[in-house]
């Protein structure tokens, strides 16, 4: 890997956006807006973070990362993986489908190349960890040592010890993964659940009972985009993950069910691209949201949502999102 950003910084075009961050002094007299959220021992000052795979330290020079609650890395696996053949992604109406396949340099490679660049950003780093057996997660977390502020366990990975169905579709497998990781770290554990499960409530409860500090609901939905003309699969891997606006109504239900099933915070992920999308998820029980697909076209969208949430609270004269939702909700 060559380092991407070598040159001088020309901040002119970005000055206005960076400057737009609300000046704390302006708020004198206004109610104290508290958007902070606790994930285990970690407190995020705002409930906005990027979705795994949809953020990189390269963005540190383009957006005010300090205005995010955390950053989230692309999933790190135990061994080196090259990822999937081309094409690895495509856009379809109201969504994109990706089959990047999670190339990874393993935890050692990650710590050597990417982590220092994450650590240099002004937000806690959530390291996403993957595995193809329930036994593969804990060693990666252990190898990451004390790096990262929290771990997000991506269990939307085929379980090679069983029939290749996702680890996250099986509550027992989730339990095994989380229990093993709990033994090697005291840091917050987030379990990121897949969509294609018989019972999201059972999966979320398995994560909670095994010691997770939060669940993230959900990952992209497996899909198979075809070329309109040739009818051939567009993706080199044939199947990819559908993300973006079209999955939101599906994920809303999962977040609602999960947040009724567990006491730990539920982080919503799926099709968030606006303040209203975020508020929709908060209204069905989410404590925080992740932004994926929307940030490719609008790299600043998560920061904008964080600012927008604060502004809506200020405008409404309330101090928290919960109060805002109560106001919003007509009787």
């Amino acid at each position, binding site marked *: 890997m*060559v380092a*991407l*950003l*070598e*040159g*001088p*910084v*020309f*901040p*002119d*075009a*970005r000055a206005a956006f960076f400057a737009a961050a609300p000046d704390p002094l302006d708020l004198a007299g206004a109610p104290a807006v508290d958007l902070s959220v606790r994930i285990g021992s970690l407190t995020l000052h705002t409930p906005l973070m990027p979705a795994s*795979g*949809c*953020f*990189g*330290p*390269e*963005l540190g*020079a*383009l957006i005010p990362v300090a205005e995010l609650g955390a950053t989230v890395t*692309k999933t790190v696996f135990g*061994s*080196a*993986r*090259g*990822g999937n*053949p*081309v*094409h*690895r*992604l*495509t*856009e379809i*109406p*109201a*969504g*994109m489908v*990706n089959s*990047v396949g999670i*190339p990874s340099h393993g935890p050692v490679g990650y710590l050597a190349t990417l982590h220092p660049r994450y650590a240099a950003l002004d937000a806690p780093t959530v390291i996403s960890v993957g595995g193809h057996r329930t036994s593969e997660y804990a060693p990666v977390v252990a190898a990451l040592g004390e790096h990262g502020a929290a771990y997000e366990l991506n269990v939307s990975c085929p379980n090679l010890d069983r029939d290749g169905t996702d680890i996250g579709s099986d509550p027992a497998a989730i339990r095994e993964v989380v229990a093993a990781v709990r033994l090697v770290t005291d840091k917050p554990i987030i379990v990121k659940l897949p969509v294609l499960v018989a019972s999201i409530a059972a999966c979320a409860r398995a994560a909670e009972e095994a010691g997770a500090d939060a669940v993230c609901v959900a990952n992209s939905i497996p899909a198979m985009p075809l070329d309109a003309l040739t009818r051939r699969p567009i993706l*080199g891997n044939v199947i990819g993950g559908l993300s*973006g*606006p079209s999955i939101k109504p599906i994920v809303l239900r999962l977040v609602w069910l999960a947040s009724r099933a567990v006491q730990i915070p539920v982080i919503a992920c799926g099709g968030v691209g606006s303040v209203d999308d975020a508020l929709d998820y908060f209204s069905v029980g989410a404590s925080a949201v992740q932004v994926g*697909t*929307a940030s*490719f*076209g*609008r*790299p*600043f969208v998560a920061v904008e949502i964080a600012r927008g949430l604060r502004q809506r609270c200020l405008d409404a004269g309330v101090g928290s999102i919960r109060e805002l939702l109560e106001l919003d909700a007509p009787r």
Partner: protein
Amino acid sequence: MVSVRPRSAVPRPQPVWDDAEVLVHEPVGERYRRLVLACDTIARTAQAGQFLMITVPPSGGDTILLPRPMAIHRRRPATPARPATAHGPATAATPGTVELIYGTVGRGTRALAAVPVGGNLQLTGPLGRGFEFPAATRTALLIGRGVGVCGVMGAAEDAAAAGIRTTMVLSGRNPQQLLGRTDCAELGVTVLEATDHDGSSDLAALKTRLLTEFDGTTPGRTPPDVVMVCGAGVLARLAAELGADWGVTVQASLEAHMACGLGYCHGCAAPVSTDPSVEGPLVCADGPVFDAVLPVV
């Protein structure tokens, strides 16, 4: 086979995001559209062969999620206002602009075509590693096909500025659709046209023609010091063959489906790795311009 070019001594510019005004947006022939965007920083800093990620605004009820990669066809840095002097009249300041040319192929470029002059386009750039002339280059052969001409035109600009004698193959379906003639005339680039229409774009024919053109014996016909190519994959192979024949460096600009353009989404890895545990280079960050060599048999 392509490989990542060795790290350059020239630092790459920091990409910025910008909300650029659309100054010109007009059809070019039947298939293409020209966009001129006001973006000072990018016009000043972009290197030959770099590209932008253009966020396509929603059009009708259709929202476009992923930004679209587009080569920077021309860079025109801002000029300050100049008072009248003995040498000439006063001139007004001009803003820095970049020019793009694109074909409408799918949902994204169709929605892009609806953006009005006077409107704004959000974009990130300049991105990627572009073309770079090896030290002491005196002559260059550039090859572009279709909108691929835009990928190499920045190199023609650099060549003109550096006094490098340049020939450019403009390839396309038919003579009416060839892009870049006016640009080449402005930059003093010798043009070789090659079209499907009369068969001159046929790879074997083109190769023979170029080998004759640069036969190495006739004076002024010595092979170029570097070959730069952008367009169809088969052209990169042709260029690599010529480069091998002539013993010169070949640089090829590749395309890939992209989401971030910055190097973190891994959507754009080139399919050149043979080891499944090793990823191919990223077209957006390690390229789009790579060294092209013939595979070792």
